[in-house]
């Protein structure tokens, strides 16, 4: 059975990646072509010409107005994926149509719905408003991961690994040594994991960006919306500085770390990451530092998870794992994703070849 959850919205790209050039990316095993209409609206359709399967994201395929022209034989498609012209004849075969995809741009991301299009209106798109909101400055990127998406979910749901894998960047001894609290909302399908450190070393990631000297209060509150959007609400402040009772928090530095975990295939993942902060908003030096530091941390995860994928791919199913308290949140996320995958699998169509028969 596929491990990819269908009938869900996934982040396919940053809005800045999609323009008036054809752009191809594989999402959940489906090759998808993205481009913008002349009015700026993003559109998505299958990235294979119906004629001889040439990738429409491959040059010399190109846009002409609100159509895309296949670079091999000139089959031309409108923004809904309908073929409107073929070479040498006036009749366009009725079946000459590309699958189109529901697309929504939100919070700087381009989201695409993978599954039964009719269900796209019933599935909510989780929000990450800080990425495109006044009062925050954001740095972001994407790293390809040669590992299944579930390994990145495991990684992010248990931040105790920061102490060991990311020491000297974001990891300090207190992260692994501080107990967590886990909550699951079964109806909203949200997993929330809190780790609040009252008196912790300040890792360079926060010391250099906030200017705090000395030990800190460090809160990590994970809000995961399975299967794909991960939010880490991070608060740091000098030791003893807590939010006011009315919820205001003038003494705290807030960083919203966002990951969009998008399966590329069963065994590879697009690892979108973003770091939004509510301090030093105009400071390019802080932006450069956070961008480089977070990318370094992400690449440390990439190396580790790529190695883990190679190991798991070579093992027979059923190797025994061992879970301890730090895994409480990750286990909850796995369970919800498994249920989503089972529900989505009931809707999986037959192969395209079978459908064509």
């Amino acid at each position, binding site marked *: 059975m596929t491990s990819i959850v269908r009938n869900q919205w996934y982040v396919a790209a940053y809005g800045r990646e999609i323009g008036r050039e054809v752009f191809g990316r594989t999402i959940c095993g489906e090759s998808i072509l993205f481009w913008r209409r002349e009015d700026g609206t993003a559109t998505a359709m299958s990235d294979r010409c119906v004629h001889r399967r040439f990738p429409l994201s491959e040059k010399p395929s190109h846009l002409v107005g609100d159509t895309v022209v296949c670079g091999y034989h000139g089959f031309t498609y409108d923004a809904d994926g309908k073929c409107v012209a073929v070479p040498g004849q006036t009749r366009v075969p009725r079946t000459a149509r590309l699958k189109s995809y529901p697309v929504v741009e939100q919070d700087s991301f381009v989201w695409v719905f993978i599954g039964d299009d009719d269900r796209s209106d019933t599935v909510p798109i989780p929000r990450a408003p800080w990425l495109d909101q006044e009062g925050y400055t954001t740095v972001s990127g994407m790293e390809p991961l040669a590992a299944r998406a579930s390994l990145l979910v495991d990684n992010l749901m248990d931040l105790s690994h920061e102490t060991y894998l990311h020491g000297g960047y974001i990891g300090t001894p207190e992260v692994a040594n501080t*107990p*967590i*609290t*886990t*909550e*699951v*909302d*079964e*109806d*909203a399908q*949200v997993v*929330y994991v*809190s*780790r*609040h*450190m*009252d008196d912790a070393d300040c890792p360079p990631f926060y010391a250099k960006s906030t200017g705090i000297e000395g030990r800190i*209060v460090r*809160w990590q*509150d994970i809000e995961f919306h399975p299967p794909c959007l991960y939010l880490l609400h991070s608060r740091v402040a000098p030791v003893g500085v*807590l939010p006011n009772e009315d919820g205001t928090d003038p003494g705290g530095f807030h960083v919203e770390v966002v990951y969009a975990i998008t399966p590329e295939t069963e065994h590879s993942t697009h690892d979108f990451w973003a770091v939004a902060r509510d301090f030093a908003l105009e400071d390019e030096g802080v932006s450069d530092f956070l961008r480089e530091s977070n990318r370094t941390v992400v690449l440390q995860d990439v190396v580790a998870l790529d190695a883990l994928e*190679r*190991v798991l791919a*070579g*093992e*027979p199913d059923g190797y025994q794992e061992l*879970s*301890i*308290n730090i*895994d*409480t949140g990750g*286990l*909850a996320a796995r*369970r919800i994703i498994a249920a989503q995958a089972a529900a989505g699998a009931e809707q999986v169509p037959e192969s395209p070849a079978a459908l064509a028969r």
Partner: protein
Amino acid sequence: MTGPLRTVPAGPTATPTRVLEGDRVTRVAWLPGSDRLLGECSCGARAEGGDPIGMWQWLLAHPDHPTQVAEPDAGAAAVHVPPPHRVARPEQAAGPRTPLR
């Protein structure tokens, strides 16, 4: 309420408080200063245990929560010798390949 419950000590001011507010929220708190977990079901049932898998099984059994949370290593009469890690493909092999002579 099932199982023996300890009094949960008052935590420091920064101890996480309840966040999610839905009708069906389950909660597992790692009790400070211990290796123990305190599970709370949305129905109000609470239980303590020492293993997250056992705790989730207990919570997900709602409304028929077992009387106790399964404990780690429960029933293990002896520690088994762990199996070897079997390598199926050459690229999985760790360390330099030993040349044949």
